[in-house]
């Protein structure tokens, strides 16, 4: 197809793959479209014929009029039915295709490595699955049918017109393109204006976002008038830009309507001349006039359709880009399932970085024995969270190995490895659903008693009971009305219910006040009994009970030992610890 480059053609082929299941419907749809157009074009001819039977007083052929009328009724019924079936076909194809595309995209997201998810803004990925998929189905399929019906309407009209009277047909053919030029001319001129409008709008939205998000600070510093002034300045410019863009673009309709009027007048005059010469009847003229009206319409539509198709292909390409992104390397065919975990975790000579240009973890070796508590401390950005990413195999190491009970984690199924860890993160993520569903996330078949027991152990039971519907209270995406601390308690309960053989606690109690934390610590202590646990914490009070403390800085372990030995060393840890007791 002209106007599409190589990559777009590739995309087009992929698109056809998604439409293939509907091949029969597509064929039917094309057939119905052709039928609809033919019948629609036939109707004005019948009208013309009827008019020709109604000449003047006493010159009316009632029998023929009745016969034509009967035929018209049949044509109308058939056209309407074909039109409706055509819409049904198209709806079925469009909605079905977009559904298939979305299912494929979502399933692929679940297989994508976290590296990809971390590197892409979530809003942007969501818009690929939702908005782009929609644009694709509407733009491509609707655009395609419009293009198809448009083209056959034009061709059919031309054929009918030329068969009726070629001179008048020629007049129509010559005048119509003017409307295309006018539309294209205006579109080109207004492009810059629309661009300016959307830029100014973006500038204003940025100010609004800044202001709306931080209105309390604005008021605390009495900056209301000042901001309003800045807003008004942008608003003024926006109004100017909008007026130009809207006005100039709104000339398109009257202008094309004017060109249609030209065509109409030309057909009227040419037709009338031809009628005098006997080349055409009055009925034929009326038929021509109605063709002249509908002939220009598909032209205007088609000029829009090409942009729409381009846009749809671009949207499709964005969705395919997501679907084509390399998935996590699948579990090796001989991957073992980790079971009866003891919890000996060994990292030997591990290298890892997110960005090859900026090395992060280099030659890291740690051995955690069954049942040990390993605390990881260090300043922000030292690689604590990265270590968790590697343990959970959210990311794979660049060099060295990580072993659990002597198995290289790359030779284990991800599922068995990950479910062997219980993970509580600082980022308290909950899913939309009831409290019960959230606690039972790891074990959907857990009984009510088990769920309540887990909630009690994590001190969440008390506040859950105070909620309007207790354990059946529905919480919106990401917790909604719950406080940060309450959400954290639920995350802890979630892990308490599964009690996996190893634990990862990343700032697990950072949002809980220290008194409640103290109580949870008891529960944690019970849970950690006999389980290898990795603990990241800011509060040194949480850390000092650990068997091994790893002090990390810039991706390296700079000190290793327990609280007493590290304090005695008088190094980085000691400095960190003592700063809490700053004698001011």
């Amino acid at each position, binding site marked *: 197809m002209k106007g599409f480059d190589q990559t777009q053609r590739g995309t087009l082929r992929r698109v056809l793959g998604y439409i293939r299941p509907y091949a029969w419907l597509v064929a039917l749809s094309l057939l119905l479209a052709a039928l609809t157009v033919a019948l629609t074009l036939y109707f004005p001819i019948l009208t013309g014929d*009827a*008019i020709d039977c*109604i000449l*003047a*007083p006493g010159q*009316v052929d009632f029998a023929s*009029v009745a016969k034509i*009328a009967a035929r*018209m*009724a049949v044509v109308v019924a058939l056209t*309407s*039915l074909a039109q*409706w079936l055509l819409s049904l076909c198209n709806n079925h194809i469009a*909605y079905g295709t977009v559904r298939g595309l979305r299912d494929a995209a*979502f399933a692929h997201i*679940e297989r994508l490595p976290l590296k990809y*998810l971390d590197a892409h803004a979530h809003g942007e990925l*969501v818009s690929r699955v939702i908005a782009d998929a929609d644009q694709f189905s509407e733009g491509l399929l609707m655009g395609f049918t419009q293009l198809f019906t448009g083209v056959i309407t034009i061709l059919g009209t031309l054929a009918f017109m030329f068969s009726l009277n070629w001179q008048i047909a020629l007049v129509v053919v010559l005048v119509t393109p003017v409307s295309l030029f006018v539309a294209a001319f205006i579109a080109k001129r207004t492009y810059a204006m629309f661009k300016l409008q959307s830029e100014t709008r973006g500038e204003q939205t940025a100010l*609004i976002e*800044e*202001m709306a998000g*931080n*209105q309390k600070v604005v*008021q*605390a510093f*009495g900056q*209301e008038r000042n901001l*309003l002034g800045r807003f008004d300045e942008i*608003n003024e410019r*926006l109004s100017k830009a*909008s007026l130009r863009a*809207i*006005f100039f673009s*709104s*000339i398109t309709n*009257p202008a094309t309507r*004017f060109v249609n009027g030209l065509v*109409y*007048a030309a057909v*009227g005059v040419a037709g009338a001349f031809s009628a*005098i010469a006997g080349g055409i009847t*009055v009925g034929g003229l009326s038929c021509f006039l109605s063709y002249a009206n509908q002939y220009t319409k598909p032209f205007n539509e088609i000029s829009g359709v090409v942009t729409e198709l381009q846009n749809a292909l671009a949207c499709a390409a964005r969705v395919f880009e997501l679907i084509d992104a390399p998935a996590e390397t699948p579990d090796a065919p001989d991957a073992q399932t980790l079971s009866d975990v003891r919890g000996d975790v060994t990292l030997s000579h591990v290298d890892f970085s997110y960005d090859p240009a900026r090395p992060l973890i280099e030659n890291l070796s740690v051995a955690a024995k069954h049942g040990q508590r390993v605390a990881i401390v260090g300043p922000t950005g030292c690689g604590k969270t990265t270590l968790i990413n590697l343990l959970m195999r*959210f990311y794979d190491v660049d060099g060295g190995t990580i072993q659990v009970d002597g198995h290289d984690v790359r030779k284990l199924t991800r599922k068995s490895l*990950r*479910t062997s860890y219980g993970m509580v993160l600082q980022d308290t993520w909950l899913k939309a659903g009831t409290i019960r569903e959230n606690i039972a*996330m790891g074990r959907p078949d857990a009984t009510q008693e088990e769920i309540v027991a887990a909630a009690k152990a994590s001190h969440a039971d008390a506040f859950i009971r105070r909620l309007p519907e207790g354990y059946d209270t529905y919480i919106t995406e*990401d917790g909604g009305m719950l406080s940060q*601390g309450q959400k954290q308690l639920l995350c802890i309960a*979630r892990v308490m219910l599964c009690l996996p053989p190893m634990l990862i606690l990343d700032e697990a109690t950072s949002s*809980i*006040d*220290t*008194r409640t934390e103290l109580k949870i610590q008891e529960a944690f202590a019970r849970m950690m009994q006999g389980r290898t646990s990795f603990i990241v914490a800011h*509060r040194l*009070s949480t850390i000092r009970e650990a068997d091994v403390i790893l002090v990390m800085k810039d991706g390296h372990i700079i000190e290793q030992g327990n609280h007493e030995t590290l304090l005695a060393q008088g190094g980085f840890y000691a400095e960190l610890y003592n*700063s*809490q*007791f*700053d004698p*001011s």
Partner: protein
Amino acid sequence: MKRLLCYMKGYGKESVLGPLFKLLEASFELLVPLVMAAIIDTGVANGDRGYILRMGGVLLLLGFVGLAASITAQYFSAKAAVGFAGRLRHALFEKVESLSFSQLDALGASTVITRMTSDINQVQTGVNLALRLLLRSPFIVFGAMVMAFTVDAKSALVFVGVIPLLALVVFGVMLWTIPQYRRVQAGLDGVLGKTRETLSGARVLRAFAREDAEIAAFEEKNAALTRMQRFVGRVSALMNPLTYALINLAVLVLLNTGALQVDAGHITQGELVALVNYMSQILVELIKLANLIITITRALASANRVAAVLDLPSGNAAMEEAQSAAPKPVPGAPAVAFEGVGLAYDNAGAESLSDISFRAEPGETIGVIGGTGAGKSSLVNLIPGFYAATRGHVRIFGTDVQDWPAAALRAAVGVVPQKAVLFKGTIGENLRWGCSDAPDGALWDALARAQAKDFVEQKEGGLEAPVEQNGRNFSGGQRQRLTIARALVRKPAILILDDSASALDYATDAKLRHAIRAMEGGPTVFLVSQRAASIRHADKIIVLDDGRIAGIGTHAQLLAGCPVYQEIYDSQFPREKHAGAPAGKEA
């Protein structure tokens, strides 16, 4: 919508002229079939080529005049719509600036943003289209009917019959589908929510190996959405075939009655053609009208959302009052005094603060400590009048907060909020929020006290260094120190640090506290913190527990007599045995 009409003022001329010119254009359009009829009946019948050419000229003229009228109409409507939207945005922005904190809490930032952007754009489009088409479409529909009557009353009855039927179909289908589309939208929102959730929760979901369950849940939602879309599609697809059938059946009837009328000599052949033409004009306009009504319904919904915000009473007095001076301090009065204060937030059942009474003398440092949700922020937010006490009195230098002019009160109280927020601009511009005419020296002094001088000096441009939106080109700790400096620039009499040093390490935190204490004029400082270490040296520590005061006193006094404070302290310093704590609870 009525509420918003006042913003149309000043555009009265435009909003009358716009539709008027549009009607002018429509009238010319309605004349076209009559001219055509004349061409057929006079021109063709008499073989008068000159007449035909003249009439062709008339058609051209009608087209030109119509074009001119229409472009004029577009200009006036665009001007009125854009001007209206501009004023509305200004009014809405001003209104948001004048809302109180509790109103802002209830509204939420994302609401404000959508109302001010997409909702107002929607209203603008609605007004523009309404001015252009709302009168035009019905005018053409009924105009065509009236014109038909001028041609032949008996044939025109077909129009009288078919127009209501068409209206029934068009509006019936529309009325049925609009609420259905809302359900489809809800289904789409569900699919969208699921996608967002699986992205934001990727780590947790994978940790629990829930990928397959997520896929199944998504597919179920997606299938339900598709079913709904197809169902609604089936009905809305009826509109075009039905209207097509109605119009063309009407043409059929028209031809049959026309045959009789022509035979009886009541109308000519050309007039019959004109009648058929009028019929097809109606269809086009009715469809336009239906689309217009959908747009206007949406615009009205948006307009109501905008109006709802505009209707809120202005709770932020600072926007309303003229600049007025601070009240004279009452001699000997404490800097801040709470007398039996209670605070209940809107829509909250229970009080968040109850029976709070304390005094803070000028120059004192007051520590505020307590668990999450104990009411620490609520307490300090009452001092600059961000929220109004629902019980009792808050007095600043002896005058009730309610009686302070809001602007003067905010100038006297410097607040460093929990969330460190900076604005797009330069460092200097951000700091001058505190005091617009502060010299550079004063800014550097504030930066030094806030322990921010070092890194600002290292930035290229120093005070002129750019700050990106939300200050995202600074680290959390740097942002906190800059927001502290911003509050110090105003040299406030009362300074509130609401857990605003949490990202600082203990050593920097300590230096900061010393520097503030050493400020000239000695502000009264409120330090809110979770860390016992940060507040233990305060002159007075207020211990909050579940919205009530659990103890007030110095570190030593509280450690001796306040069990809540002991617990907090023990949880952070378990090993250090506090001297002189007779009944220290076991940790």
